[in-house]
Structure formats: C-alpha cells, structure tokens
C-alpha cells in the first residue's frame, strides 16, 4: 500500500466530474426513505423497494462501478499509467493502494447513505447492518472492477453487464446465478446482523462471507498479475 499513489488517486477521483455523478444517487436513496417514512411509518410495504431495490441493487453497485473503474481505468485509458508503472514500486502495492481508495470512497458514500436509510427504515442496528454489508461488498465490488480495468478496455460496460444482466435479470430468474451475485451477499450479511422483514435473504451467511472474500481476494490477485504483464501498444496503439 503506497501512500503517494493513494493520495494522487484520491485527488484524481474526487476532482473529476464523473465523481459528481455519484452524489444524486445516495441523496435519492435517503430522501426517498425519509419521504416514505414520513408518509407511512410502517416500512413493511415500501421497505424492500427502497433498501433492496434502490440501495443494494442500484446505489451500491453503481457507485462501486464508477469509482472502481475510475481509479485505474482512466489512467490506463489516457496513458498516464506509464508514469506509475515506470517506477520500481511493486505492482502489488499499486493495486492495493488503488483498491484502498476505491473501497474507501465507495464505502464512504454508499455505506453512509445506507446507514441513514437503515436508521430511517428500522433501527440503528438495522442501519449498522446495512452499512457493514456495504463495507464488505464495496471491497468485493472494487476488487472485481479493478481487475476488469486491467483486463479489458471497456471495464464499465462489462461491469454494467454484470450488475444489470447477471445480478439483476438473471438473479431474479435463475436461483443458481445468485451464488455469484455480490448484491445477494450484501443482503445476506445485512440480514444476519439485523434481521428484518424488509430483506429477502437467499444465501446463507457463511456462503455470502466466503464468496465476498473470494471475489475480493481473487479480483485483487488477478489485477496484480495482469498489471505485472501490462503492455503498452506500439505505433498503432
């Protein structure tokens, strides 16, 4: 974990315009929860669309996507990655630094919003449960999107495919695909900390934790290995 890289990455992320894209979503989440709570204090009807439908299905993945692909993908895209790679810093340290920033920013934005939402919807404990699930799954998502940034030139589209089609569409249709769906891990983790009628748990806690760890570690290792073999194209590239 390299502090110089982390601080430059954080500055780059927070200064870019794409970061501003993220802010409406958490505001929408908390605002909607507050509004709904004001109209109907009993969350049994509206809780699920807000927490699961907007929170875990949209807010967390989208923020993780924009941040996770932004910390490395943008540099690879415009070529400034060379300045970083032409140094003796271990590729492992580079990836870990960027992962820390990505997970940290995602957590700061998403977990805070989910915590507030949870408090509004249920109790402080529920808020904590949602926040912890966000923290764990931020790391998992960030690692996956970081790996995608190194592996392909269109990480955002692939990430969108994963979130929308794999987790969204297939997750609703095929029970088997849920094992590979980070959203489901988040739901399972949150529900185990603070059981609630709002969350429909489909995976067991041990499985969710193990798979989250697998994604986090696997994504990180993949990113490190691919970064070691990073190629700069020739004249045509």
């Amino acid at each position, binding site marked *: 974990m*390299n502090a*110089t*890289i982390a601080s*430059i990455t954080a*500055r*780059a992320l927070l*200064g870019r315009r794409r970061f501003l894209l993220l802010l409406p979503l958490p505001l929408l989440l908390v605002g909607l929860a507050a509004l709904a709570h004001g109209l109907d204090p009993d969350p049994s009807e509206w809780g699920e669309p807000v927490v699961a439908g907007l929170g875990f299905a949209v807010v967390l993945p989208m923020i993780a996507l924009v941040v996770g692909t932004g910390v490395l993908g943008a540099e690879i895209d*415009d*070529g*400034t990655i*060379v*300045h*970083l*790679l*032409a*140094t*003796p*810093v*271990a*590729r492992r340290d580079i990836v870990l630094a960027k992962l820390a920033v990505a997970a940290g920013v995602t957590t700061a934005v998403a977990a805070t919003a989910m915590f507030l939402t949870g408090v509004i919807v249920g109790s402080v404990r529920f808020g904590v449960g949602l926040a912890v699930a966000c923290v764990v799954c931020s790391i998992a998502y960030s690692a996956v999107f970081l790996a995608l940034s190194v592996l392909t030139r269109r990480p955002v589209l692939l990430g969108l495919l994963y979130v929308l089609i794999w987790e969204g569409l297939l997750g609703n249709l095929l029970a088997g695909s849920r094992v590979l769906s980070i959203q489901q891990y988040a739901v399972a983790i949150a529900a185990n900390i603070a059981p609630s009628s709002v969350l429909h748990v489909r995976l067991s806690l041990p499985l969710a934790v193990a798979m989250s760890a697998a994604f986090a570690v696997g994504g990180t290792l993949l990113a490190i290995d691919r970064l*070691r*073999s*990073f*190629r*700069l*194209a*020739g*004249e*045509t590239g």
Partner: protein
Amino acid sequence: MHPSTGTVELHGVSRWYGNVVAINDVSMTLGPGVTGLLGPNGAGKTTLLHMMAGFLPPSRGELTVAGRPAWRNPEIYRVLGLVADREAVPGFLTAWQFVLASARLHELPEPEQATERALGQMELHDAWHRRLGTYSKGMRQRARVAAALVHQPTVLLLDEPFNGMDPRQRLHMMDLLHRTADAGATVLFSSHILEEVEQVSGTVQVIVAGRLAASGDYRSIRRLMTHRPHVFAIRSSDDRRLAVALMAEPAVAGVDIGPSGLTVRAGDYGTFARALPRIVQRERIRVRQVTPSDESLESVFAYLVAQ
C-alpha cells in the same frame, strides 16, 4: 554510475502480432552516449522502445537491460527512465507535485532535492507551482522528462522527445541529453525527423519496416553506400573552366552549372576527393566553397527507405 548498469542488449529480437511482424530480428548493443533511433512512422521505433522499457515482451530473442530481462522486472526502473510518446499527464497536479511523486515512487532518499534539481534542469523552476493542465505542450513534455530524470537513470529512453518543442527548447534538450550521456548514461531517443538526429547524435540506429537497416555513425553509413553518387556543391573563381576540367575526370558522373555554383555528381568519394585539389591546382582556379550536398541523414534515410 557504473557503466555496466547502462547497457541495453538485444539479440535477435522479434515482435509480431498475429501475422504482422512489427520488429524483425533486431540485434544491437547500446552503451553510454547518445544514440538516435531513426525511422519513418510505423517502422517500429515505439515498439522497440517499449520493449526496452519492459512494457512489451519480445516474441523471440533476448532483450536485457543491465544484464537482466526488461519484461516483468520493475527493478530495472531504478536505473531506467522512460519518456513515452503519449503526451497525457495528470493535469490536476502541479509540476512540482508530479515530479515529486515520481521521486517518491523511485524511493529516492531526498525526493524534494531531486525534484528541485530535475525541474531546474528542465528550466521549469518558474512554473513549478502551476498545474500541468495549464501548461503548453512543450512545457508538459519538459515536465515528463523531468519526472523521468529525477532518479538519475543510467538508461534514458525517449520516444520522439522533440515533438512540440520550439527551436530554443530543442537546443536545450539536446544539450541536456549530451550532458546526461557525458555523465555515463545510455541515452536513446527516437525520431522520424532527420534534422533532430543529425544535430544530436552522430550514432544512429536506422530502423525501417521493423528491420535494422543500418547502425553506427551516419556519415560512415553514407560512405558505405557507394552505389549512389555523392553530390558536391562547389563555388570557385571560374566555374565554367572548372566544370570542363571536372568532366574529363573519370570519377565525375556529371556536372551542373547554376547561378550559385557547380553541382558535381561523383561516383567515388575517395577518388574525387583526391582529384579535385589536383585539378584546381593545375587550372589555377580558386575554390571558394566545397560542400558535400547530401552528406545528411535525409539522403541516407531516403535511400534506405527506397530499398
């Protein structure tokens, strides 16, 4: 600097992408001094530089920097600096922060001092506090070179470094490259502009269509190619009489008379060089100027490209 840490060696290096061969069996050894990598666009200069910098593996052959392979070896960056051809820099950083970050990432013991020295070398000490996004193209280029020089590498690779520089900056950069090389570093820069290579280095590696077409001092390369006639521009006190006398010489292939002097095409450089003074003395003509007209990289280059 220990000289052996600055050697770049290539043995039979080839690089292909599917059916396209980008580099074809190139062997060379680069040592201390300035070498120009010359070739037209698309010849493979950037590919070769990226391979030397460890950003592309050779499909075949061996490529070592300071005795170790460059590929998958971040340690070489302790002694190697690369200025790539893509101009992008993190616009939100100031030049100071950018070069300082490079110094820190190279784990220098005194990064601030190194940064100040590098920025001074590139004449950026007036603008170091401004963000790179506000820099002109030439200044950005200099900032990138400063970041590559901050750890005083023994191997410095520059891809088309004079792009976007005005003549004064170019002279300054050339001077810098020479000074770096004089301190014992191996400097390799690529260019497709002949004047640049001509002025900076006498040693040249010419790469055309992925093959190494020629290497060494460019004047000697030129002389090696005796197929094409050498051209001289001569001004004398009596051009016409000199022209007549020269036409009688077997070494002379042709003479053109123009308003500013004679243009003489000679088949054999050495014979003509010995014949000219003899003729001039015999005819009692005063010669004011003898210029080898195409003793320049351009004709070398054009000739090689036409092959």
